[in-house]
């Protein structure tokens, strides 16, 4: 049984100007100890997917259909109290901007200790020691002193480490990392990616990595799901995505990026812009921008099908 399985998830936002179908039938699974990347451009629904798993979709957003199973238990059936016990303890989350998720008026040591106490109980003294130990594990230099610092006293990189320590303190089975390195400089990003890779391997923890950056995916993920207009269009082991992408959108994305073999040459780009998610058009959401689109693409929405072992594509025209 997979650690987490998401089936047919639909999350919608009812706005004055129509219903926005932010996540529109997403299904995937994460095995224990696996790192799955969820990749897409802004507004594609990748963050809403992660918030749906945590059941933290902000109003007016609502999960309207689907199943989210953690070790077989459906999270959507849980009441608020039971869900609170899942969050943090079994699924933890790390965000792009640690400043917004760390409380500015408590020291980071206090915050991590509080998380430990809430999930494990025990004595305050022991919880504090655990907090210092966690900071040490995320390679914060002189963790005993840093534990007494307030978030604003730390640099961006240290803050992100503190945030990871806070998320991992209760020992979650699944870590959802939403653009964890996007706000960081490239050298600090490299350090954090190394740290995540090491912690993931040591703890055998599963990671759902939400990112727009295919480079980060190549660094960290085992498998990748490419998401477009609220739907997964391609899902495959990481090497396959880069070596032999099948979906025209994935191919387009990869060719958009500057590549050492093509420096200075025109980049190929994807024409047009992503569709308005309020529309309820039939057919493939990528069809209007797709160079390979045929008549049937505009009429029937393609299903995600396994075209190669472990390689799923939602495109009937994709060259296989």
């Amino acid at each position, binding site marked *: 049984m997979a650690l987490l399985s998401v089936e047919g998830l639909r999350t919608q936002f009812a706005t004055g100007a129509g219903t926005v179908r932010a996540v529109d039938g997403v299904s995937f699974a994460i095995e224990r100890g696996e790192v799955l990347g969820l990749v897409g451009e802004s507004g594609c629904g990748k963050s809403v997917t992660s918030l749906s798993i945590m059941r933290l979709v902000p109003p007016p957003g609502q999960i309207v259909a689907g199943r989210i199973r953690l070790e077989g238990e459906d999270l959507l059936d849980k009441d608020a109290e039971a869900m609170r016990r899942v969050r943090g303890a079994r699924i933890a989350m790390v965000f792009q901007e640690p400043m917004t998720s760390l409380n500015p008026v408590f020291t980071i040591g206090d915050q991590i200790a509080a998380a430990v106490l809430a999930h494990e109980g025990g004595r305050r003294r022991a919880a504090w020691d655990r907090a210092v130990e966690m900071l040490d594990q995320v390679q914060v230099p002189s963790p005993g002193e840093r534990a007494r610092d307030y978030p604003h006293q730390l640099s961006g990189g240290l803050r992100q480490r503190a945030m990871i320590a806070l998320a991992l303190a209760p020992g979650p089975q699944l870590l959802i990392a939403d653009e964890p390195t996007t706000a960081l400089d490239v050298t600090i990003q490299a350090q954090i990616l190394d740290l995540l890779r090491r912690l993931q391997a040591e703890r055998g923890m599963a990671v759902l990595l939400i990112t727009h950056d295919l480079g980060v995916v190549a660094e960290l993920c085992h498998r990748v799901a490419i998401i477009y207009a609220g739907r997964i269009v391609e899902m495959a082991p990481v090497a396959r995505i880069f070596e032999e992408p099948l979906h025209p959108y994935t191919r387009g994305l990869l060719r958009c990026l500057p590549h050492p073999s093509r420096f200075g040459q*025109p*980049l*190929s*780009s994807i*024409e*047009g*812009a992503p569709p308005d998610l309020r529309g309820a058009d039939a057919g493939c959401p990528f069809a209007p921008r797709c160079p390979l689109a045929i008549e049937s693409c505009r009429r029937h929405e393609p299903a995600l099908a396994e075209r190669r072992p472990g390689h799923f594509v939602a495109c009937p025209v994709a060259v296989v």
Partner: protein
Amino acid sequence: MSVTATMLPVVARPRRRVSFRAAFGLGALLLIGGSAVFAPQLAPWDPARQMLTKRLRPPMWQARGLREHPLGTDHLGRDILSRILHGGRISLGVGLTAVTLSALIGVTLGLLAGFFGGRADALIMRIVDVFLAIPYILLAMGVVFALGPSLLNVILVMGATRWVQFARIVRADVLSIREREFVAGARARGNRPLRLLLRHVLPNALTPIIVVATLELAFMIIYESALSFLGLGVQPPTPTWGWMLADGRNYVATAWWLATFPGLAIMLTVLAVNLLGDWLRDTLDPRLKV
């Protein structure tokens, strides 16, 4: 290669409809302004005429009310309706001119302080501190004493003591606006300082200016009454709303209508100006037009 990738069709922008609130504000303000302008034609009585036999009569719908005095009479037997109509001329006139004056001074100084910073800022902000430290009413008293009480002096004093409100808020806003990239871009594209201020900075600081102006108008009407009350403003028997309000306070327990009707007039004016200010702010902001 796609250079022409984003040729989206241009959709016609729907025009923003004037909302009910804005229409109400505009209507009320026209009514108030109109009745102030035409007060001599509309008022049934001379506002200064005392009829001691008809003192403290309640509005006409009450037991001792008289039909010829719809809103009743005051302790000297003067017709309240006529006094409100005439009082509006002074109150609105003084309020509007004083707000305009203080906005002109305050916005100019705020723009200069916020935009140029450095010494200009330090100097202007020290002046602001001084004005904030001295109670404005004390300052006004001193000045009016020195210059002698007259309508013009009252307006000058009111404008000259309240501009700090505008200066502070405009300066704070300009400090953040001048750091925005479009200001640097406008400079790179040849805007000289004056044009930069007027075309790029000022329009983006309009929202707080309008909000402060509507609040200040209400304040000025009351301020004028305070000065009048101290004998420094408009001299009786010329009626003003503030003066009537202050005067009527003594009779609140026995003759509620003395203070209530001028109070309602002030409230209605402030409400109308606020609604209109909201509308103006939204209309001037292209981001809210979709």
